[in-house]
Protein backbone atom coordinates (compact mmCIF):
# COMPACT_ATOMS: atom_id res chain seq x y z
CA UNK A 1 0.00 0.00 0.00
CA UNK A 2 2.77 2.39 0.96
CA UNK A 3 4.66 1.56 -2.22
CA UNK A 4 1.58 2.25 -4.36
CA UNK A 5 1.08 5.59 -2.66
CA UNK A 6 4.74 6.41 -3.20
CA UNK A 7 4.38 5.66 -6.90
CA UNK A 8 1.36 7.95 -7.20
CA UNK A 9 2.68 10.76 -5.03
CA UNK A 10 6.40 11.14 -5.55
CA UNK A 11 8.27 11.96 -2.33
CA UNK A 12 8.48 15.62 -1.42
CA UNK A 13 5.20 16.81 -2.98
CA UNK A 14 3.73 18.07 0.26
CA UNK A 15 7.03 19.23 1.72
CA UNK A 16 8.02 21.58 -1.11
CA UNK A 17 7.21 25.27 -0.45
CA UNK A 18 6.86 25.84 -4.22
CA UNK A 19 4.17 23.19 -4.37
CA UNK A 20 2.43 24.60 -1.32
CA UNK A 21 2.22 28.04 -2.92
CA UNK A 22 0.94 26.52 -6.18
CA UNK A 23 -1.65 24.40 -4.35
CA UNK A 24 -2.94 27.35 -2.32
CA UNK A 25 -2.94 29.92 -5.13
CA UNK A 26 -4.10 27.45 -7.74
CA UNK A 27 -6.91 26.34 -5.45
CA UNK A 28 -8.09 29.89 -4.75
CA UNK A 29 -7.99 30.90 -8.41
CA UNK A 30 -9.70 27.71 -9.53
CA UNK A 31 -12.63 28.16 -7.15
CA UNK A 32 -13.15 31.78 -8.27
CA UNK A 33 -12.93 30.80 -11.96
CA UNK A 34 -15.31 27.86 -11.51
CA UNK A 35 -17.95 29.93 -9.69
CA UNK A 36 -17.84 32.73 -12.25
CA UNK A 37 -17.68 30.16 -15.06
CA UNK A 38 -21.07 28.66 -14.23
CA UNK A 39 -22.67 31.90 -15.43
CA UNK A 40 -20.28 32.14 -18.40
CA UNK A 41 -21.57 28.77 -19.60
CA UNK A 42 -25.22 29.56 -18.75
CA UNK A 43 -25.02 32.82 -20.68
CA UNK A 44 -23.08 31.34 -23.61
CA UNK A 45 -20.18 33.73 -23.15
CA UNK A 46 -17.25 31.31 -23.48
CA UNK A 47 -15.89 33.32 -26.38
CA UNK A 48 -15.99 36.49 -24.27
CA UNK A 49 -14.06 34.64 -21.54
CA UNK A 50 -11.45 33.58 -24.07
CA UNK A 51 -11.25 37.07 -25.61
CA UNK A 52 -10.94 38.83 -22.26
CA UNK A 53 -8.12 36.43 -21.31
CA UNK A 54 -6.25 36.98 -24.55
CA UNK A 55 -6.63 40.73 -24.30
CA UNK A 56 -5.42 40.51 -20.71
CA UNK A 57 -2.23 39.12 -22.26
CA UNK A 58 -1.60 42.51 -23.88
CA UNK A 59 -2.05 43.97 -20.43
CA UNK A 60 0.41 41.48 -19.02
CA UNK A 61 2.91 42.32 -21.72
CA UNK A 62 2.48 46.08 -21.44
CA UNK A 63 2.77 46.03 -17.64
CA UNK A 64 6.05 44.31 -18.27
CA UNK A 65 6.98 47.31 -20.48
CA UNK A 66 6.44 49.92 -17.77
CA UNK A 67 8.02 47.69 -15.13
CA UNK A 68 4.83 46.80 -13.27
CA UNK A 69 3.83 43.28 -12.33
CA UNK A 70 1.88 41.31 -14.94
CA UNK A 71 -1.10 40.75 -12.64
CA UNK A 72 -1.87 44.50 -12.49
CA UNK A 73 -1.72 44.64 -16.30
CA UNK A 74 -3.86 41.54 -16.65
CA UNK A 75 -6.56 42.95 -14.41
CA UNK A 76 -6.54 46.46 -15.93
CA UNK A 77 -6.70 45.23 -19.52
CA UNK A 78 -9.25 42.51 -18.83
CA UNK A 79 -11.53 45.07 -17.18
CA UNK A 80 -11.01 47.44 -20.14
CA UNK A 81 -11.84 44.63 -22.57
CA UNK A 82 -14.99 43.81 -20.62
CA UNK A 83 -16.04 47.46 -20.82
CA UNK A 84 -15.47 47.64 -24.58
CA UNK A 85 -17.35 44.36 -25.08
CA UNK A 86 -20.25 45.82 -23.11
CA UNK A 87 -20.18 49.10 -25.05
CA UNK A 88 -20.42 47.45 -28.46
CA UNK A 89 -23.19 45.26 -27.21
CA UNK A 90 -22.17 41.66 -26.64
CA UNK A 91 -25.36 41.35 -24.58
CA UNK A 92 -27.40 40.97 -27.74
CA UNK A 93 -27.04 37.41 -28.96
CA UNK A 94 -27.08 38.47 -32.60
CA UNK A 95 -23.75 39.95 -33.62
CA UNK A 96 -22.20 39.14 -30.25
CA UNK A 97 -19.89 36.57 -31.73
CA UNK A 98 -18.60 38.91 -34.42
CA UNK A 99 -18.25 41.90 -32.08
CA UNK A 100 -16.25 39.77 -29.64
CA UNK A 101 -14.12 38.67 -32.57
CA UNK A 102 -13.35 42.23 -33.64
CA UNK A 103 -12.33 43.21 -30.10
CA UNK A 104 -10.20 40.07 -29.86
CA UNK A 105 -8.48 40.89 -33.17
CA UNK A 106 -7.67 44.36 -31.87
CA UNK A 107 -6.39 42.85 -28.60
CA UNK A 108 -4.13 40.47 -30.51
CA UNK A 109 -2.81 43.37 -32.55
CA UNK A 110 -1.95 45.28 -29.39
CA UNK A 111 -0.34 42.16 -27.87
CA UNK A 112 1.84 41.78 -30.96
CA UNK A 113 2.86 45.42 -30.71
CA UNK A 114 3.61 45.34 -26.98
CA UNK A 115 5.58 42.10 -27.21
CA UNK A 116 7.53 43.59 -30.11
CA UNK A 117 8.27 46.80 -28.20
CA UNK A 118 9.21 44.78 -25.11
CA UNK A 119 11.51 42.41 -26.95
CA UNK A 120 13.25 45.18 -28.86
CA UNK A 121 14.20 46.82 -25.57
CA UNK A 122 15.32 43.75 -23.68
CA UNK A 123 15.57 40.04 -24.24
CA UNK A 124 12.03 38.86 -23.76
CA UNK A 125 11.53 35.55 -25.51
CA UNK A 126 11.11 33.95 -22.09
CA UNK A 127 8.64 36.65 -21.08
CA UNK A 128 6.46 35.79 -24.09
CA UNK A 129 6.23 32.20 -22.94
CA UNK A 130 5.46 33.21 -19.36
CA UNK A 131 2.72 35.62 -20.36
CA UNK A 132 0.97 33.25 -22.72
CA UNK A 133 1.36 29.96 -20.91
CA UNK A 134 2.01 31.04 -17.35
CA UNK A 135 3.85 29.01 -14.82
CA UNK A 136 1.94 27.89 -11.77
CA UNK A 137 5.13 26.80 -10.00
CA UNK A 138 6.73 30.22 -10.46
CA UNK A 139 4.24 32.25 -8.44
CA UNK A 140 5.72 33.69 -5.25
CA UNK A 141 3.77 32.81 -2.11
CA UNK A 142 3.69 36.54 -1.30
CA UNK A 143 1.16 37.00 -4.13
CA UNK A 144 -1.45 35.15 -2.09
CA UNK A 145 -2.98 38.24 -0.38
CA UNK A 146 -3.41 40.02 -3.72
CA UNK A 147 -4.92 36.94 -5.35
CA UNK A 148 -7.28 36.45 -2.42
CA UNK A 149 -8.27 40.13 -2.53
CA UNK A 150 -9.08 40.07 -6.25
CA UNK A 151 -10.69 36.66 -6.08
CA UNK A 152 -12.73 37.78 -3.09
CA UNK A 153 -13.86 40.88 -5.00
CA UNK A 154 -15.02 38.76 -7.94
CA UNK A 155 -16.91 36.33 -5.72
CA UNK A 156 -18.43 39.15 -3.66
CA UNK A 157 -19.60 40.90 -6.84
CA UNK A 158 -21.09 37.61 -8.02
CA UNK A 159 -22.86 37.14 -4.67
CA UNK A 160 -24.35 40.64 -4.82
CA UNK A 161 -25.78 40.20 -8.33
CA UNK A 162 -26.51 36.47 -7.92
CA UNK A 163 -30.32 36.49 -8.03
CA UNK A 164 -30.88 39.12 -10.75
CA UNK A 165 -28.02 37.61 -12.80
CA UNK A 166 -29.58 34.17 -12.59
CA UNK A 167 -32.93 35.52 -13.70
CA UNK A 168 -31.45 37.57 -16.55
CA UNK A 169 -29.40 34.59 -17.73
CA UNK A 170 -32.22 32.05 -17.63
CA UNK A 171 -35.30 34.12 -18.46
CA UNK A 172 -34.56 37.60 -19.87
CA UNK A 173 -38.28 38.31 -20.41
CA UNK A 174 -39.19 37.61 -16.80
CA UNK A 175 -36.25 39.75 -15.63
CA UNK A 176 -37.40 42.62 -17.84
CA UNK A 177 -40.91 42.30 -16.45
CA UNK A 178 -39.52 42.66 -12.95
CA UNK A 179 -37.65 45.80 -13.93
CA UNK A 180 -34.16 44.33 -13.76
CA UNK A 181 -31.66 46.08 -16.05
CA UNK A 182 -30.08 43.33 -18.12
CA UNK A 183 -27.34 45.72 -19.25
CA UNK A 184 -26.30 46.73 -15.75
CA UNK A 185 -26.33 43.18 -14.43
CA UNK A 186 -24.55 41.94 -17.55
CA UNK A 187 -21.84 44.57 -17.19
CA UNK A 188 -21.29 43.81 -13.51
CA UNK A 189 -21.01 40.16 -14.46
CA UNK A 190 -18.47 40.90 -17.21
CA UNK A 191 -16.33 42.72 -14.62
CA UNK A 192 -16.45 39.70 -12.31
CA UNK A 193 -15.54 37.52 -15.30
CA UNK A 194 -12.63 39.81 -16.22
CA UNK A 195 -11.24 39.60 -12.68
CA UNK A 196 -11.55 35.82 -12.59
CA UNK A 197 -9.96 35.43 -16.02
CA UNK A 198 -7.09 37.74 -15.12
CA UNK A 199 -6.42 35.68 -12.00
CA UNK A 200 -6.59 32.40 -13.90
CA UNK A 201 -4.35 33.84 -16.60
CA UNK A 202 -1.79 34.54 -13.93
CA UNK A 203 -1.88 30.92 -12.74
CA UNK A 204 -2.01 28.82 -15.89
CA UNK A 205 -1.37 31.44 -18.55
CA UNK A 206 -3.49 33.84 -20.58
CA UNK A 207 -4.43 31.34 -23.26
CA UNK A 208 -5.21 28.44 -20.94
CA UNK A 209 -7.26 30.45 -18.44
CA UNK A 210 -10.32 29.65 -20.55
CA UNK A 211 -9.98 26.04 -19.44
CA UNK A 212 -10.53 26.87 -15.76
CA UNK A 213 -13.45 29.21 -16.41
CA UNK A 214 -15.35 27.14 -18.98
CA UNK A 215 -14.39 23.52 -18.31
CA UNK A 216 -15.40 22.76 -14.68
CA UNK A 217 -18.58 24.87 -15.01
CA UNK A 218 -19.61 23.11 -18.23
CA UNK A 219 -19.02 19.70 -16.62
CA UNK A 220 -21.04 20.73 -13.56
CA UNK A 221 -23.93 21.99 -15.69
CA UNK A 222 -23.99 18.65 -17.49
CA UNK A 223 -24.47 16.90 -14.14
CA UNK A 224 -27.08 19.17 -12.56
CA UNK A 225 -29.34 21.98 -13.65
CA UNK A 226 -29.77 23.43 -10.14
CA UNK A 227 -27.70 26.63 -9.87
CA UNK A 228 -26.49 26.15 -6.29
CA UNK A 229 -25.48 22.53 -6.89
CA UNK A 230 -23.80 23.51 -10.17
CA UNK A 231 -21.71 26.16 -8.37
CA UNK A 232 -20.59 23.63 -5.75
CA UNK A 233 -19.90 20.91 -8.32
CA UNK A 234 -17.96 23.33 -10.54
CA UNK A 235 -15.73 24.38 -7.63
CA UNK A 236 -15.06 20.75 -6.66
CA UNK A 237 -14.37 19.60 -10.23
CA UNK A 238 -12.09 22.60 -10.74
CA UNK A 239 -10.13 21.85 -7.56
CA UNK A 240 -9.79 18.19 -8.56
CA UNK A 241 -8.43 19.20 -11.98
CA UNK A 242 -5.99 21.81 -10.70
CA UNK A 243 -4.64 19.79 -7.77
CA UNK A 244 -4.57 16.60 -9.85
CA UNK A 245 -2.69 18.47 -12.57
CA UNK A 246 -0.16 19.81 -10.05
CA UNK A 247 0.38 16.32 -8.64
CA UNK A 248 0.92 14.83 -12.12
CA UNK A 249 3.28 17.66 -13.04
CA UNK A 250 5.27 16.97 -9.87
CA UNK A 251 5.39 13.23 -10.63
CA UNK A 252 6.44 13.93 -14.21
CA UNK A 253 9.84 15.20 -13.06
CA UNK A 254 10.79 11.54 -13.02
CA UNK A 255 9.25 10.76 -16.40
CA UNK A 256 11.05 10.46 -19.73
CA UNK A 257 12.23 11.91 -21.99
CA UNK A 258 13.84 14.97 -20.45
CA UNK A 259 13.47 14.56 -16.69
CA UNK A 260 12.74 18.25 -16.24
CA UNK A 261 9.00 17.89 -15.74
CA UNK A 262 6.01 18.23 -18.01
CA UNK A 263 4.06 21.51 -17.83
CA UNK A 264 1.30 21.67 -15.21
CA UNK A 265 -0.90 23.56 -17.71
CA UNK A 266 -1.01 20.49 -19.93
CA UNK A 267 -2.18 18.19 -17.13
CA UNK A 268 -4.77 20.66 -15.83
CA UNK A 269 -6.28 21.14 -19.28
CA UNK A 270 -6.26 17.41 -20.00
CA UNK A 271 -8.09 16.72 -16.73
CA UNK A 272 -10.59 19.52 -17.44
CA UNK A 273 -11.49 18.10 -20.87
CA UNK A 274 -11.61 14.58 -19.41
CA UNK A 275 -14.06 15.73 -16.72
CA UNK A 276 -16.27 17.30 -19.41
CA UNK A 277 -16.32 14.07 -21.43
CA UNK A 278 -16.99 11.95 -18.33
CA UNK A 279 -19.81 14.27 -17.25
CA UNK A 280 -21.33 13.90 -20.73
CA UNK A 281 -21.01 10.11 -20.61
CA UNK A 282 -22.61 10.08 -17.14
CA UNK A 283 -25.54 12.23 -18.25
CA UNK A 284 -26.17 10.23 -21.40
CA UNK A 285 -25.43 6.82 -19.89
CA UNK A 286 -27.69 4.04 -21.14
CA UNK A 287 -30.79 3.45 -19.03
CA UNK A 288 -31.24 7.10 -18.21
CA UNK A 289 -34.38 8.46 -19.76
CA UNK A 290 -33.00 11.39 -21.73
Amino acid at each position, binding site marked *: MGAVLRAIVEPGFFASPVVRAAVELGGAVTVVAALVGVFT*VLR*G*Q*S*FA*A*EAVGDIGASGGSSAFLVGAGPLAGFVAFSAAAATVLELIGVQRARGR*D*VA*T*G*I*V*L*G*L*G*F*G*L*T*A*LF*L*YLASSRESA*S*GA*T*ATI*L*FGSIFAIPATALPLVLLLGGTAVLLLAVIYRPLLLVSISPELAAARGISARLVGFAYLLALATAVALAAETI*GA*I*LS*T*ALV*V*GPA*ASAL*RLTSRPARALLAAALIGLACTWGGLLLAWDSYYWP*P*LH*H*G*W*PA*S*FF*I*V*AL*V*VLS*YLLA*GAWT*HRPGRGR
Partner: protein
Amino acid sequence: MFSGTMPDAWIVGTMVAVVGGAIGFFVVLRGAAFAAHAIPSGSFAGAAGATLVGVSTLLGLGLFAVLGAFGIAGLSHRGRRDVGTALALVLLLGLGALFVSLSAEPASSIFALLFGEVLAVGRGELLPTAALTAVCLAALATLWRPLLLASALPEAVVGARAVTLDLAFLLLVALATTMTVPVVGTTLIFSVLVAPAATARSLAGTPGRALSLSVITALAIVWSATALAYLTEWPIGFFVGSLGAAAFLAARLGTSPARAGGSRRGSRSSAAQS
Protein backbone atom coordinates in the same frame (compact mmCIF):
# COMPACT_ATOMS: atom_id res chain seq x y z
CA MET B 1 8.97 48.85 -50.58
CA PHE B 2 8.72 46.74 -53.74
CA SER B 3 12.31 45.48 -53.97
CA GLY B 4 14.17 42.46 -52.56
CA THR B 5 11.84 39.84 -51.08
CA MET B 6 9.04 42.41 -50.75
CA PRO B 7 7.24 41.35 -53.97
CA ASP B 8 6.79 37.91 -52.37
CA ALA B 9 5.27 39.50 -49.29
CA TRP B 10 2.80 41.45 -51.45
CA ILE B 11 1.81 38.34 -53.45
CA VAL B 12 1.36 36.16 -50.36
CA GLY B 13 -0.50 38.94 -48.55
CA THR B 14 -2.86 39.26 -51.52
CA MET B 15 -3.59 35.52 -51.54
CA VAL B 16 -4.19 35.51 -47.79
CA ALA B 17 -6.57 38.46 -48.09
CA VAL B 18 -8.57 36.85 -50.91
CA VAL B 19 -8.99 33.52 -49.09
CA GLY B 20 -9.57 35.19 -45.70
CA GLY B 21 -12.13 37.63 -47.06
CA ALA B 22 -14.01 34.88 -48.93
CA ILE B 23 -14.10 32.30 -46.13
CA GLY B 24 -14.71 35.08 -43.61
CA PHE B 25 -18.04 35.71 -45.34
CA PHE B 26 -19.24 32.34 -44.03
CA VAL B 27 -17.53 32.78 -40.66
CA VAL B 28 -19.59 35.92 -40.04
CA LEU B 29 -22.78 34.53 -41.59
CA ARG B 30 -22.61 31.44 -39.38
CA GLY B 31 -21.54 33.37 -36.26
CA ALA B 32 -18.45 31.17 -36.10
CA ALA B 33 -15.87 33.75 -35.06
CA PHE B 34 -14.92 31.63 -32.04
CA ALA B 35 -14.19 28.63 -34.27
CA ALA B 36 -12.20 30.90 -36.59
CA HIS B 37 -10.13 31.88 -33.57
CA ALA B 38 -9.83 28.39 -32.10
CA ILE B 39 -8.67 26.51 -35.22
CA PRO B 40 -5.70 28.76 -36.07
CA SER B 41 -4.69 29.18 -32.42
CA GLY B 42 -4.92 25.45 -31.81
CA SER B 43 -2.90 24.66 -34.93
CA PHE B 44 -0.01 26.40 -33.19
CA ALA B 45 0.33 23.22 -31.13
CA GLY B 46 0.81 21.26 -34.36
CA ALA B 47 3.69 23.49 -35.37
CA ALA B 48 5.30 22.98 -31.96
CA GLY B 49 4.78 19.23 -32.26
CA ALA B 50 6.26 19.18 -35.76
CA THR B 51 9.36 20.94 -34.44
CA LEU B 52 9.57 18.34 -31.68
CA VAL B 53 9.47 15.26 -33.93
CA GLY B 54 11.30 16.96 -36.77
CA VAL B 55 8.73 16.96 -39.58
CA SER B 56 7.64 19.92 -41.69
CA THR B 57 5.80 22.70 -39.86
CA LEU B 58 3.15 22.78 -42.56
CA LEU B 59 2.29 19.12 -41.90
CA GLY B 60 1.94 19.73 -38.16
CA LEU B 61 -0.19 22.83 -38.73
CA GLY B 62 -2.45 21.05 -41.19
CA LEU B 63 -2.89 18.00 -38.95
CA PHE B 64 -3.77 20.06 -35.88
CA ALA B 65 -6.03 22.42 -37.81
CA VAL B 66 -8.02 19.38 -39.00
CA LEU B 67 -7.92 17.94 -35.45
CA GLY B 68 -9.25 21.27 -34.21
CA ALA B 69 -12.13 21.14 -36.72
CA PHE B 70 -13.07 17.60 -35.67
CA GLY B 71 -12.53 18.48 -32.00
CA ILE B 72 -14.97 21.40 -32.18
CA ALA B 73 -17.57 19.30 -33.98
CA GLY B 74 -17.05 16.38 -31.55
CA LEU B 75 -17.01 18.28 -28.26
CA SER B 76 -20.01 20.39 -29.32
CA HIS B 77 -22.00 17.21 -29.92
CA ARG B 78 -24.89 17.08 -27.40
CA GLY B 79 -23.53 20.22 -25.78
CA ARG B 80 -23.10 23.94 -26.22
CA ARG B 81 -21.15 25.06 -29.25
CA ASP B 82 -19.14 27.75 -27.47
CA VAL B 83 -18.16 25.35 -24.68
CA GLY B 84 -17.10 22.67 -27.19
CA THR B 85 -15.04 25.21 -29.12
CA ALA B 86 -13.38 26.54 -25.97
CA LEU B 87 -12.49 23.06 -24.74
CA ALA B 88 -11.13 21.94 -28.13
CA LEU B 89 -8.99 25.08 -28.16
CA VAL B 90 -7.57 24.68 -24.66
CA LEU B 91 -6.87 20.98 -25.23
CA LEU B 92 -4.82 21.78 -28.33
CA LEU B 93 -3.04 24.63 -26.54
CA GLY B 94 -2.30 22.35 -23.59
CA LEU B 95 -0.65 19.94 -26.03
CA GLY B 96 1.20 22.92 -27.47
CA ALA B 97 2.54 23.81 -24.01
CA LEU B 98 3.67 20.20 -23.61
CA PHE B 99 5.41 20.13 -27.00
CA VAL B 100 7.16 23.44 -26.35
CA SER B 101 8.33 22.15 -22.98
CA LEU B 102 9.61 18.83 -24.37
CA SER B 103 11.24 20.45 -27.36
CA ALA B 104 14.91 21.30 -27.20
CA GLU B 105 14.35 24.11 -29.70
CA PRO B 106 14.33 27.65 -28.36
CA ALA B 107 10.71 28.62 -27.80
CA SER B 108 11.07 31.96 -29.58
CA SER B 109 11.10 30.35 -33.05
CA ILE B 110 7.78 28.68 -32.24
CA PHE B 111 6.28 31.81 -30.78
CA ALA B 112 7.02 33.58 -34.05
CA LEU B 113 4.06 31.56 -35.32
CA LEU B 114 1.69 33.30 -32.94
CA PHE B 115 2.14 36.69 -34.47
CA GLY B 116 3.67 35.85 -37.83
CA GLU B 117 5.87 37.89 -40.07
CA VAL B 118 4.63 38.48 -43.59
CA LEU B 119 7.68 40.60 -44.39
CA ALA B 120 9.90 37.57 -43.84
CA VAL B 121 8.08 35.42 -46.41
CA GLY B 122 10.52 33.40 -48.47
CA ARG B 123 10.31 32.39 -52.11
CA GLY B 124 9.86 28.76 -51.05
CA GLU B 125 6.56 29.53 -49.34
CA LEU B 126 5.10 31.11 -52.47
CA LEU B 127 4.21 27.90 -54.31
CA PRO B 128 2.59 25.95 -51.42
CA THR B 129 0.57 29.04 -50.48
CA ALA B 130 -0.62 29.48 -54.07
CA ALA B 131 -1.58 25.80 -54.32
CA LEU B 132 -3.55 25.91 -51.07
CA THR B 133 -5.23 29.15 -52.17
CA ALA B 134 -6.46 27.42 -55.31
CA VAL B 135 -7.75 24.43 -53.29
CA CYS B 136 -9.49 26.76 -50.81
CA LEU B 137 -11.23 28.77 -53.50
CA ALA B 138 -12.25 25.64 -55.44
CA ALA B 139 -13.72 24.10 -52.28
CA LEU B 140 -15.52 27.34 -51.51
CA ALA B 141 -17.01 27.48 -55.01
CA THR B 142 -18.19 23.85 -54.73
CA LEU B 143 -19.75 24.39 -51.31
CA TRP B 144 -21.13 27.86 -52.05
CA ARG B 145 -24.82 27.08 -52.62
CA PRO B 146 -25.44 24.37 -49.98
CA LEU B 147 -23.36 26.19 -47.37
CA LEU B 148 -25.13 29.49 -48.09
CA LEU B 149 -28.52 27.82 -47.60
CA ALA B 150 -27.45 26.03 -44.42
CA SER B 151 -25.93 29.22 -42.99
CA ALA B 152 -28.66 31.69 -43.91
CA LEU B 153 -31.61 29.39 -43.14
CA PRO B 154 -30.45 26.93 -40.46
CA GLU B 155 -34.04 25.61 -40.16
CA ALA B 156 -34.06 24.55 -43.81
CA VAL B 157 -31.10 22.19 -43.51
CA VAL B 158 -31.28 19.77 -40.59
CA GLY B 159 -30.04 16.36 -39.49
CA ALA B 160 -27.06 14.59 -40.96
CA ARG B 161 -26.74 17.04 -43.85
CA ALA B 162 -26.40 19.99 -41.48
CA VAL B 163 -23.73 18.12 -39.51
CA THR B 164 -21.82 17.30 -42.71
CA LEU B 165 -21.98 20.89 -43.95
CA ASP B 166 -20.88 22.19 -40.56
CA LEU B 167 -17.87 19.89 -40.61
CA ALA B 168 -17.14 20.88 -44.22
CA PHE B 169 -17.15 24.53 -43.16
CA LEU B 170 -14.82 23.87 -40.21
CA LEU B 171 -12.46 21.93 -42.49
CA LEU B 172 -12.50 24.87 -44.90
CA VAL B 173 -11.35 27.13 -42.05
CA ALA B 174 -8.71 24.50 -41.20
CA LEU B 175 -7.48 24.54 -44.80
CA ALA B 176 -7.24 28.33 -44.83
CA THR B 177 -5.41 28.14 -41.49
CA THR B 178 -2.82 25.69 -42.79
CA MET B 179 -2.08 27.92 -45.72
CA THR B 180 -1.88 31.22 -43.87
CA VAL B 181 -0.45 30.55 -40.41
CA PRO B 182 3.18 29.94 -41.46
CA VAL B 183 3.04 33.19 -43.39
CA VAL B 184 1.03 35.56 -41.26
CA GLY B 185 0.72 33.94 -37.83
CA THR B 186 -2.23 32.53 -35.94
CA THR B 187 -3.48 35.93 -34.83
CA LEU B 188 -3.41 37.77 -38.15
CA ILE B 189 -5.50 35.20 -40.01
CA PHE B 190 -8.18 35.62 -37.39
CA SER B 191 -8.37 39.37 -38.01
CA VAL B 192 -8.48 38.73 -41.76
CA LEU B 193 -11.23 36.13 -41.31
CA VAL B 194 -13.58 38.24 -39.18
CA ALA B 195 -13.17 42.01 -39.59
CA PRO B 196 -13.55 42.44 -43.40
CA ALA B 197 -16.55 40.13 -43.62
CA ALA B 198 -18.23 41.80 -40.64
CA THR B 199 -17.64 45.20 -42.25
CA ALA B 200 -19.05 43.97 -45.57
CA ARG B 201 -22.07 42.43 -43.89
CA SER B 202 -23.18 45.71 -42.39
CA LEU B 203 -22.83 47.46 -45.78
CA ALA B 204 -23.93 45.02 -48.49
CA GLY B 205 -27.31 43.39 -48.97
CA THR B 206 -26.93 40.40 -51.26
CA PRO B 207 -24.56 37.48 -50.55
CA GLY B 208 -22.61 38.04 -53.77
CA ARG B 209 -22.06 41.71 -53.02
CA ALA B 210 -21.12 41.00 -49.40
CA LEU B 211 -18.60 38.40 -50.57
CA SER B 212 -16.89 40.74 -53.03
CA LEU B 213 -16.95 43.66 -50.61
CA SER B 214 -15.43 41.40 -47.95
CA VAL B 215 -12.57 40.41 -50.27
CA ILE B 216 -12.00 44.04 -51.30
CA THR B 217 -11.94 45.18 -47.65
CA ALA B 218 -9.55 42.38 -46.76
CA LEU B 219 -7.24 43.39 -49.61
CA ALA B 220 -7.31 47.04 -48.54
CA ILE B 221 -6.54 46.12 -44.92
CA VAL B 222 -3.74 43.66 -45.71
CA TRP B 223 -2.10 45.92 -48.28
CA SER B 224 -2.17 49.00 -46.01
CA ALA B 225 -0.93 46.91 -43.09
CA THR B 226 1.95 45.52 -45.15
CA ALA B 227 2.97 49.01 -46.23
CA LEU B 228 2.69 50.41 -42.68
CA ALA B 229 4.60 47.46 -41.20
CA TYR B 230 7.34 47.98 -43.77
CA LEU B 231 7.59 51.69 -43.05
CA THR B 232 7.46 51.52 -39.25
CA GLU B 233 9.00 48.05 -38.72
CA TRP B 234 6.22 47.39 -36.20
CA PRO B 235 4.54 43.95 -36.32
CA ILE B 236 1.98 43.60 -39.10
CA GLY B 237 -0.52 41.95 -36.74
CA PHE B 238 -0.95 45.24 -34.93
CA PHE B 239 -1.92 47.09 -38.12
CA VAL B 240 -4.23 44.34 -39.39
CA GLY B 241 -5.98 44.13 -36.02
CA SER B 242 -6.46 47.87 -35.57
CA LEU B 243 -7.36 48.60 -39.23
CA GLY B 244 -9.90 45.77 -39.14
CA ALA B 245 -11.50 47.14 -35.98
CA ALA B 246 -11.51 50.65 -37.46
CA ALA B 247 -13.20 49.45 -40.68
CA PHE B 248 -15.85 47.57 -38.71
CA LEU B 249 -16.49 50.55 -36.43
CA ALA B 250 -16.73 52.94 -39.39
CA ALA B 251 -19.23 50.66 -41.15
CA ARG B 252 -21.31 50.32 -38.00
CA LEU B 253 -21.33 54.06 -37.32
CA GLY B 254 -22.08 54.76 -40.99
CA THR B 255 -25.10 52.47 -41.14
CA SER B 256 -26.69 52.91 -37.72
CA PRO B 257 -28.28 56.40 -38.25
CA ALA B 258 -29.76 55.23 -41.55
CA ARG B 259 -31.04 52.09 -39.87
CA ALA B 260 -32.78 54.14 -37.20
CA GLY B 261 -34.40 56.36 -39.87
CA GLY B 262 -36.16 53.71 -41.91
CA SER B 263 -35.97 50.24 -43.39
CA ARG B 264 -32.45 48.98 -44.04
CA ARG B 265 -33.10 48.22 -47.67
CA GLY B 266 -34.50 51.67 -48.35
CA SER B 267 -31.58 53.45 -46.79
CA ARG B 268 -29.12 51.26 -48.66
CA SER B 269 -30.59 51.92 -52.09
CA SER B 270 -30.77 55.66 -51.44
CA ALA B 271 -27.14 55.57 -50.37
CA ALA B 272 -26.28 53.74 -53.59
CA GLN B 273 -28.02 56.39 -55.69
CA SER B 274 -26.40 59.37 -54.04
